């Protein structure tokens, strides 16, 4: 069973309006590379020149922020769901 990436609205133009993308990558870092090969241009939206996830992008694996896991090295297993979400204001 593959992993799924939930694509946020601002990036759906790049994925031809696909909201859920299935991937096979073994880590978050690899997932970004895999998305880039299939949807050119998506990588630079998510990571900066140094390869770090942009500061206004939050990435979650099964609802846990990857900054509480192993950031780009966070391992992925079958059935995992990855969400990419812009930072939100307070409340």
């Amino acid at each position, binding site marked *: 069973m593959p992993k799924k990436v*939930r694509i*946020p*609205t*601002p*990036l759906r*133009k790049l994925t031809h309006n696909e909201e859920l993308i299935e991937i096979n990558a073994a880590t978050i870092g690899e997932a970004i590379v895999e998305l880039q090969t299939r949807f050119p241009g998506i990588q630079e*939206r998510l990571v900066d020149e140094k390869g770090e996830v*942009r*500061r*206004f*992008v*939050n990435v*979650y694996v099964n*609802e846990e*922020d990857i*900054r*509480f896991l192993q950031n780009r090295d966070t391992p992925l297993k079958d059935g995992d769901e990855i*969400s990419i*979400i*812009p*930072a*939100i*204001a*307070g*409340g």
Partner: protein
Amino acid sequence: MSEKHQGFMKALKCRECGREYPLAATHVCEFDFGPLEVAYDYERIKKSLTRAAIESRPKTMWRYRELLPVAQEPTVGQQVGFTPLIKADRLAKKLGIRELWVKNDAVNYPTLSFKDRVVSVALSRAKELGFKTVACASTGNLANSVAAQAASAGLKSFVFIPSDLEQGKILNSLIYGANVICIKGHYDEVNRLCAEIAGKFGWAFVNVNMRPYYAEGSKSLAYEIAEQLGWRLPQHTIVPMASGSLLTKIHKGYQEFVKLGLVPDTEARLHGAQATGCSPISTAQKAGLDFFKPVKPDTIAKSLAIGTPADGFYALKVMRETSAAADDVSDDEIRDAIRLLAETEGIFAETAGGVTVGVAKKLIASGKIPRDSSAVICVTGNGLKTLDAVQGHCGKPREIKPSLREFEALLTQEEKANA
């Protein structure tokens, strides 16, 4: 409606890369996910917004209407704002500072917190853009204000909150007939879910797709402070930080007043206050970092419990640029500060107010705010909404029979005990 130049607004602009977007319900730059902010036509504003013009208008936040992001006259919350700025001499003496003021948004209209400002703007703008349903992710105060102001405007509302909120804050949303959805998780999880919901439903989420307009409402707090001080900026302003947005918007408000020539260009430091149990921004500031590490919140200051603060980066930048400090206080220090403010100034603040007063005390004691200076403390919410936090920490009433003798005996007994 034309998408160009509405009212005094020019466009939405990415704070990171400067790309411009139409004035729609959208909040994130498609290119780098940077937050979008409203760009104004300051040349036109300067001609219209003078001290005399402002002073001739009703005492509400809308007397600065040119600097607030609506195309037409506001239609929701026209009475919000212009809360008292109190000269807090008794608290000043306790904290050991020459001049101290409390900006008291605990008595804001209609729901007793500074969120009435941002919601008034967000819902007025939402109506302009044709929305019928409004929503928010909230730690409580925002939900109360969205629920109340949506009710008064005849809009349908959905408010999403963490399920462990204070009872008072939950009831204060339910009473207005809002759809209150409790999420089993902390605010950052509520936020994440709301981002996903906002992408799917065509609603005006005040702090998601309406965020560029919503956040600007906070600037009115700065305008009022400057005007109420007699058209000048305070040397020091102490601001509670959750997402960090309020601190950055107060800074922007001060700067706009300088730019428009409404106040002299004097040094105005903006100090940030957090609870130790959720202090990603103050921890980074104290360590001299320009980025923060997200945390899992654990504090009685639930209205400030945001572990992944969206504007944390910009709040750190403002504090750096204004040579300001940040600090944080424990739950006990928060309760003590709530009592101190109540006992010296007769103002009952919610936990966030305890955080701000507690941090002001620390910054004055450590010399980061010099004793011979003037400071404003921002109290942003009302203690009646967070009674749970002080229950059992502020003494107990004494019970007697309706008898004069018992009362006199009680006084004698207590005098002896205190002797």
